[in-house]
């Protein structure tokens, strides 16, 4: 790739909030953007460490989120605790492969993708790798974008629990698993947002 000149060499700093390129010299004592008054850093401080911390928290939360039941349904036909994977299997077996696929993508594929993607980004940044810098930036944008789609499961459980309250005929109640799953989504989103994508382009010292 053609070596581009980096902002540091040009004495410029980018405001991550409004996208204004500010000259380093013009930054005042408070290091705030002239246009939007948000704090400007050359690189988000300790970005990789924070991202890693959130990522680890997300992975840890992901285990109980899958092991614990997310919903408890009871009714005339008996009662059952369902986990995410159990629900997917049940839908798949009963022939609703489309719903099974949707839930699988939203609650298994997406979080996994996020873990792998963020992990990959962290690893490459740490190694100051120059490998596929553009692709990695795109990957980061995707991760940031799809983060909240995993909330689909949480919304399904919330809606079902709220609507299915027919006493004897049938009731649904959330179970702790869904709280962990919600935590996974939130924590991975925080992890993604604390990552500074500019690090991808930094050249090794």
């Amino acid at each position, binding site marked *: 790739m053609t070596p581009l000149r980096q902002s*540091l060499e040009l004495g410029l700093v980018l405001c991550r909030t409004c996208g204004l390129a500010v000259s380093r010299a013009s930054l005042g*004592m408070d290091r705030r953007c002239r246009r939007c008054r948000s704090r400007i850093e*050359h*690189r988000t*401080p*300790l970005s990789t*460490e*924070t991202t890693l*911390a*959130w990522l*680890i*928290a*997300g992975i*840890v*939360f992901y*285990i*109980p989120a899958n092991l*614990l039941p997310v919903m408890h349904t009871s009714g*005339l*036909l*008996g*009662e*059952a605790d369902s986990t995410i994977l159990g629900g997917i299997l049940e839908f798949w077996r009963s022939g609703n492969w489309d719903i099974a696929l949707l839930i699988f993508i939203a609650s298994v594929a997406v979080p996994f993708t996020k873990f792998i993607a963020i992990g990959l980004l962290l690893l490459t940044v740490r190694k100051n790798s120059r490998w596929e810098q553009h692709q990695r930036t795109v990957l980061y944008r995707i991760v940031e974008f799809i983060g909240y789609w995993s909330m689909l499961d949480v919304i399904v459980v919330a809606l079902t629990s709220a609507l299915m309250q027919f006493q004897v005929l049938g009731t649904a109640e959330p179970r702790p698993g869904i709280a962990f799953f919600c*935590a996974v989504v939130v*924590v991975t989103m925080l992890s993604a947002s*604390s990552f500074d994508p500019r690090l991808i382009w930094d050249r090794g*010292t």
Partner: protein
Amino acid sequence: MSTAPTPSSEEELPTPAIRNRRWIPRLVWVVPIAAAVIGISLLIRNWQNAGPHITISFLSGEGVQVGKTLVKYRDVTVGRVSDIVLSSDHETVLVSADLSKDTASLLKADTQFWIVRPRIGVGSVSGLNTLLSGVYIGLKTGTATRRERQFAGLENPPALSHGPRGRELQLHAARAGSLAIGAPVYFRQFQVGRVIDENLLPDGSTRVTVFVEAPYDGFVKAVTRFWNASGINVKLGADGLNVETESLAAVLAGGLAFDDGPTEAVPAAAGIPGEYILYKNETEAMAPPDGDPHFIRMRFAQALRGLEVGAPVEFVGVNIGSVVAVDLGYEDQDRSFPVIVTAKLYPRRMGQAYEVLAAQGKTGSDETIAAFVGTLVNRGLRAQPRSASLLTGKLYIALDFLPASPRAAFDATIRPLELPTVNGTFQELEAGVGRLVKKVNDLPLEKIARDLHVDLNDLHETLSELHDRVLPNAVDTLSALHRTLDSADRTLDGESPLQRGLTESLSEARSTLQAVHELADYLDRHPDALLRGRRPQKMPQRPAASTSEAKP
């Protein structure tokens, strides 16, 4: 981190700022640590909550589903089926279940498991909710101290799944009658328990296990007698028709009842506390104990139609036993077919007599009994078939003293004892009736009828004569009589001259009597008037006399 040295070279301020920045991001590590702590604590709790894993074998796994079928104790979920496999010999189904943590103490060696399915019986309906929700596995904990993880499941639910407090009792009976599991047990018409089990013992008798709930189990004492209260007891006695039943449910499903027996202590069946004899009915239960039966045999030289097995044997009018067999024998000497009747006797039913005899040592052994019976036979003890009812023609055996009967041989060595017999009274009756019939037969009925016919002819002639001659005269006489009475009636009428004359004569007579009375009065006061005539000074009295005369 890598940026730290660059700004510090240009400005003086960043140095403290960097320290701050370095400290704050470290705070973010609290999140994964907290997550890890939560995760590990969950794991530990899960591990702690993980209860025992048990295996239950059933003959059939109908309706049991992995992950869905629950294990319930007192209708509370305590576990879930985790696996179903066939046993290695393919004879049973092995159902594995994960139970919750606190249930380890429920799993005794004698803990019972069964599959709850809908059941409908006469007395109860159970498990209907499983029609919709699917079956579940019921659990009843045991009392053993040993813990167990492998169980053999019951095919039928135990009658008492939730173990109310009370007492279990074993009743022994020759046959259980129409008792069903769950049949009620009554104490003075109150339901106090249920039949929970029935077993056929190896000797062919029945053992019925009943459960009497607390606090009514206190009514079960050593003297308590149990009897079968199934059905309706209809008794036609001297006091009229008497219908007895414990309850309608007992009529349909059978039932047991118990009450205190006669006050004297009765040894419980088999000598074990909690084991009782189940009697056929209340009368039998309340009777004093019969003791061991003694068998006797009797040969009757007459037909005994109407004598059935079970017919009573009465000694001086007291029922002391029953006929157990009626058999036909053959005697070669006179080519006869005597009827051989075997009966069992309960000497204890003789009551006080038995006690007296026992006190004299006459009931001690078979020999003493035989010797005593021998003396009784010498005194005239005979067995005699008698008619119990002229309507049904049923017979019973009466043991009675008939001193007039011919002497009979008694062999005290034969077992069972053989009592001499006399022919039944019903035959005498028959003979009497026969004689009567013969006499009636012998009557010259035809002659009587002929004579009667002649007499009747004569009578007829006499009557027609009466009709022809006497009756017309009688009619004339009667009309004359009628006329006479008519004139008499007229004569006696109130308006007739005779009547009026009579009335006038009577009033005349009355005034005459009045005058006579006056005169007598006057003479009474003035007797001298007879001689001197009336005094003139007495004149004023005349009006008084006239007023008295006018009064009547």
